[in-house]
C-alpha cells in the first residue's frame, strides 16, 4: 500500500478531506477504498447546491463488484462535483487523491469526525489484522 498523503484528513468510512485555501473542503475516497472496491465503472454525483449532512449519503461509487455509498464527512453545501468521473470513473482507481476527487463542499458547521494520516494508518493496520 502506498504512503498516505500527509496534507489530508481521513474518515473511518475511507474518505479523505482536503481543506482548500478558499475555505471549501474537497472530498474523495482513499486508495484503500478504491483498491477494495476494484475497477470503478460508475459514479453517482450529487447536484451542485445540494445540502449534505455529516454522515449522510452524498455520492455512490460502483465497481465491477458492488455499489458503495460515499458519506459526507462534514455538513455543508455542494459547491462542485468532479464531472469528469461520469465518463471516466476509473480516475478514482488511477489517482484517488488528485484527479479522482469527488465533491467539493462549503462547510456549514464544524461537525464530523476525522483522523490525521497517522491515525488513519493505524486504523488501516488494525483492519488488516
Amino acid at each position, binding site marked *: 500500500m502506498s504512503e498516505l498523503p500527509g496534507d489530508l484528513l481521513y474518515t473511518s468510512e475511507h474518505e479523505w478531506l482536503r481543506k482548500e485555501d478558499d475555505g471549501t473542503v474537497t472530498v474523495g475516497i482513499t486508495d484503500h477504498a478504491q483498491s477494495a472496491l476494484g475497477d470503478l*465503472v*460508475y459514479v453517482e454525483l450529487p447536484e451542485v447546491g445540494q445540502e449534505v449532512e455529516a454522515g449522510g449519503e452524498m455520492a455512490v461509487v*460502483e465497481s*465491477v*463488484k458492488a455499489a458503495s455509498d460515499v458519506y459526507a464527512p462534514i455538513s455543508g453545501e455542494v459547491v462542485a462535483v468532479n464531472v469528469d468521473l461520469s465518463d471516466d470513473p476509473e480516475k478514482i482507481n488511477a489517482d484517488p487523491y488528485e484527479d479522482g476527487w469527488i465533491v467539493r463542499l462549503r462547510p456549514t458547521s464544524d461537525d464530523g469526525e476525522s483522523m490525521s494520516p497517522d491515525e488513519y494508518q493505524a486504523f488501516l493496520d488494525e483492519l488488516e489484522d
Partner: protein
Amino acid sequence: MGNKTPLYEAHVAAGAKIVDFGGWDMPLHYGSQLEEHHAVRQHAGAFDVSHMTVVDVSGTDARAFLRHLLANDVARLSTPGRALYSCMLNETGGVVDDLITYYRGDNAYRVIVNASTRDKDLAWMAKQASAFDMVVKERAELAMIALQGPEACERAASLIDPGWREQALALRPFHAIEAGDLFIARTGYTGEDGWEVVMPAERAAAFWRSALDAGIRPCGLGARDTLRLEAGMNLYGSDMDETVSPLEAGLGWTIAWEPEDRGFVGRSALTEMRERSDRQRFAGLVLEDKGVLRDHMRVVVDGIGEGVITSGGFSPTLERSIAMARIPAGDYDRAKVEVRNRLLDVRVVRMPFVRNGKAQIDIQGDKS
C-alpha cells in the same frame, strides 16, 4: 482458511486478490478485472478452475445411469470425445446443478460439476445410483486450467505434446481428446474460443507458468463472471437453483424430451410446467441510463407484472450495464428496474450480449 488449488501459491506470488468462493481460496483478480476481461475478449486469458469437481462415471450401466440422472440425453454422445451441457434435476424439476458430460468411450464418462455444489451433487448422484451397475468416482487429484480467447489455442499450442498438438488444435466446439495425461476440451465459460484442460495436480504449476510465458494473461473469478454474463451463460446459485426449473432459467434447450420413454429425474414435473402459458421468461436486460444493474433488483413491466434480476453487472465490452432476469410472460421489449429507489429504463433483449469479441445486441439504445 479454505481449500487451495495447486496454483494457490502462484496466485499469491502474482499479487492476486484472494477471495472465498464456495469454500475455496481463489483469485478474484490480479490487479484489474477490466483488463483481464478485455484480454480474454481480444487475446487470451488463463483461469485456474481447479476448484471445479471432476467425477468419472464408468461401468456397464454408466450410460443408463446418466440418461436417468440428467435432463439432457447422453445418448446424443455418439462418439468418444463429445461433450454435452445438461442440468441435473430434482423430482420437482428444480436444478440440483448444471454440468458438462464428456463421453470417453467404453462405458466411461467424465462429468464436471460446480465447486460450491460438490457435496450435494455427490450425495444426489449416490442416491440415484443404487439401481445401476457402475461406479461414480470423484477425481479430486485432478487440476483444471481454462485457456480462453481468440488467441488462446494458438498461444497454448506449445504446451501440448507435439504428438497431440495438431489434433488438439483441430478440436471442434464441445469435443475433447485425451492427450497422454492431459484431457483437452474445446469448451469454456466466456463466449470465446479456447480449451479447458484437466491434468494431474502435480503438472498444474508448470502448465500454468508455461501458459503465462506464452503470453496468456492470468485472469480471476471476477473477469470470469463478467465474461460469462456477457456470453449469456447461466451461473448456478444465481440464475437457477433447486427451486427453479431449466424452463424458467433459459435452459429449455438443454432438456431432451425425445425419446418420450426416457424417464429422467424431474421429467413429470417439467412436463406439467411446460404446459403452463404463464411461465416466466428468462431474458437479457440492457440498461439505457448510466448505473449498474445488480442481482436481486426488482424488474417492473408496466401493466404486466414484476420480475427479478438473477445476474447483473457492468459489461466491459458494451460499456454499459447488463443483466439476466426472470420476468413475466408476454411480448414486450421495454421494462424498468428499481435501482436505489429510482426506476431506470431497460431494454429486454435476447442473449448472448457478446460472442467471439463482438456485440450481439444493438447498443445504440434504438428500438431493435
